[in-house]
């Protein structure tokens, strides 16, 4: 019997993993939440939209076209089974618990490739619970997949490559961008330059984009607070690198500090984690090819935050590891392993140039909402840590933080930073939140109704 390999995620990593497995004669099943394959960076608009890939993806259009065509071809020729609009909720002895539009389904597998990608890495700014505050990723998705700006007058703030990129794309599309506020100083950015030169063309493109932003762009700012009224955001207050206080009126703020790996499924699959000082977050442990647990392989930004090009490389590598372990004919990984070294040097440069704002987090006023799902404040977190101990899982159960709608995706890193500062310990000592199913909220009915098992008649 041929091995059943399940791939979770149909972004660049999942697509390249599928291609590699098909090349060795396997027929993987690819489970993805999107209606159409592509992932977040190469996300496709719904049918009926007319802008060409060149408008949507700019310089990356050829890569987007190639990945979309490759995957659509694999599905059309019956070489890959694609479960679209399907969320993996958890894993048990029978396989993956998948929530599909028509109900719950169990997908059995022998080997699992997890390519769940990343979300924005968020740091709270006082007032960020207001309507009209979005992640930078959301800002880009709105433009790319819907053709809209999420406000009339926009401020983008935070740090990382997406900040400049989204600002440039919005301006080009005719949006009113009032300011681009980067918390990374010019000194940080210079310190990252050596790593960024691992990919000179990409680094230059970033510099050119920055130049086009001109006076809208400010480096080394401190974000003070987002002001709002009953309708939502009205302004953002910030202090410049030279200490000048400003107030910029706007009805939308896009926030983000690069990426946070989406690792809950890897955790449920039994992977171990290490705290990465470089990325200021817990990342799964794996070998160079992505082997992370018995029969479990990881790829893409959910393993190493390397961006879309890196995801293609690690997607292939994970599939190669899987094929090797199955005793099947696997392609030679040498070229991709070499590429990985360059990609990692560049990614370290990015991390150094656009750091996580740890000092800002540690100094957040007590009244700041940290958990925007349930309104838990910095002060409440600090006092919970005082009586319950400075451990992430205890703070979660005692303080309701990370228990809300987003399951901690957007507050746990900031929460850990705050608690560490308050307890005077290192951030990794706060620990990592245990992974719990369902990793996406599921309607109660989906659990009550019996699940169908793939390949078995109802």
């Amino acid at each position, binding site marked *: 019997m041929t091995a059943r390999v399940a791939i979770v995620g149909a972004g660049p990593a999942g697509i390249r993993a599928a291609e590699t497995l098909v090349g060795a004669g396997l027929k993987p099943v690819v489970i993805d939440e999107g209606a159409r394959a592509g992932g977040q960076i190469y996300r496709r608009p719904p049918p*009926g939209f*007319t802008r060409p890939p060149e408008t949507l993806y700019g310089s990356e259009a050829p890569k987007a076209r190639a990945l979309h065509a490759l995957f659509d071809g694999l599905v059309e020729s019956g070489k890959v089974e694609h479960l679209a609009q399907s969320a993996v909720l958890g894993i048990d002895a029978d396989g993956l618990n998948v929530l599909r539009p028509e109900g719950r389904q169990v997908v059995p597998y022998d080997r699992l490739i997890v390519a769940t990608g990343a*979300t924005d890495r968020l740091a709270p700014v006082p007032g960020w619970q207001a309507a009209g505050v*979005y992640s930078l*990723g959301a800002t880009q998705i709105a433009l790319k997949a819907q053709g809209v700006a*999420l406000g009339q007058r926009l401020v983008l703030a935070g740090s990382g490559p997406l900040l400049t990129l989204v600002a440039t794309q919005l301006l080009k599309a005719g949006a009113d961008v009032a300011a681009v506020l980067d918390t990374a100083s010019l000194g940080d950015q210079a310190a990252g330059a050596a790593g960024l030169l691992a990919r000179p063309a990409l680094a230059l493109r970033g510099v050119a984009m920055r130049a086009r932003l001109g006076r809208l762009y400010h480096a080394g700012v401190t974000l003070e607070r987002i002001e709002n009224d009953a309708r939502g955001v009205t302004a953002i207050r910030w202090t410049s690198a030279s200490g000048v206080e400003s107030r910029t009126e706007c009805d939308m703020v896009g926030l983000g500090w690069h990426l946070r790996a989406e690792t809950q499924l890897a955790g449920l699959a039994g992977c171990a984690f290490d705290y990465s000082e470089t990325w200021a977050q817990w990342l799964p442990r794996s070998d160079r090819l992505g082997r992370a647990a018995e029969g479990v392989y990881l790829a893409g930004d959910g393993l190493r935050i390397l961006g879309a090009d890196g995801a293609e490389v690690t997607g292939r590598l994970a599939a190669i590891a899987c094929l090797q372990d199955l005793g099947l004919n696997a392609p030679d990984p040498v070229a991709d392993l070499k590429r990985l070294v360059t990609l990692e040097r560049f990614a370290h440069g990015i991390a150094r140039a656009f750091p996580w704002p740890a000092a800002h987090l540690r100094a957040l006023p007590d009244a700041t909402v940290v958990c925007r*799902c349930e309104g838990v404040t910095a002060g409440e977190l600090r006092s919970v840590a005082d009586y319950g101990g400075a451990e992430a899982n205890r703070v979660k159960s005692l303080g309701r933080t990370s228990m809300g*709608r987003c399951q901690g995706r957007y507050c746990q890193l900031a929460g850990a930073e705050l608690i560490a500062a308050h307890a005077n310990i290192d951030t990794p000592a706060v620990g990592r939140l245990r992974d719990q199913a369902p990793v996406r909220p599921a309607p109660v009915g989906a659990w009550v109704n019996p699940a169908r098992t793939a390949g078995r008649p109802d």
Partner: protein
Amino acid sequence: MTPAPSPRVRRLAETGRAPVGFLIDGQPASALAGDTLLTAILANVPALRQSEFGPEPRAGFCLMGACQDCWVWQKDGPRLRACSTPVTDGLHILTQPPETWP
């Protein structure tokens, strides 16, 4: 205090799509075919729902199905995640939980 009914999002492209009619809290609203519910609602009003833990209205956050900030109610039918559900003709969206909870 109810926010003034002004749209939150601004359309920059792809405006030639077919119109779709739906209802927000009983009021007629219009959107374009291919809009997500989030886009469709915020093209008419500034928020999706009230927060259950604070005074602020909510308007979504991640647009990628990760934050669950954007769930809205229907007059008839299950709750919907606005950022990943397409708008359809005749849908009746509620920005507050329906009074007659099943």
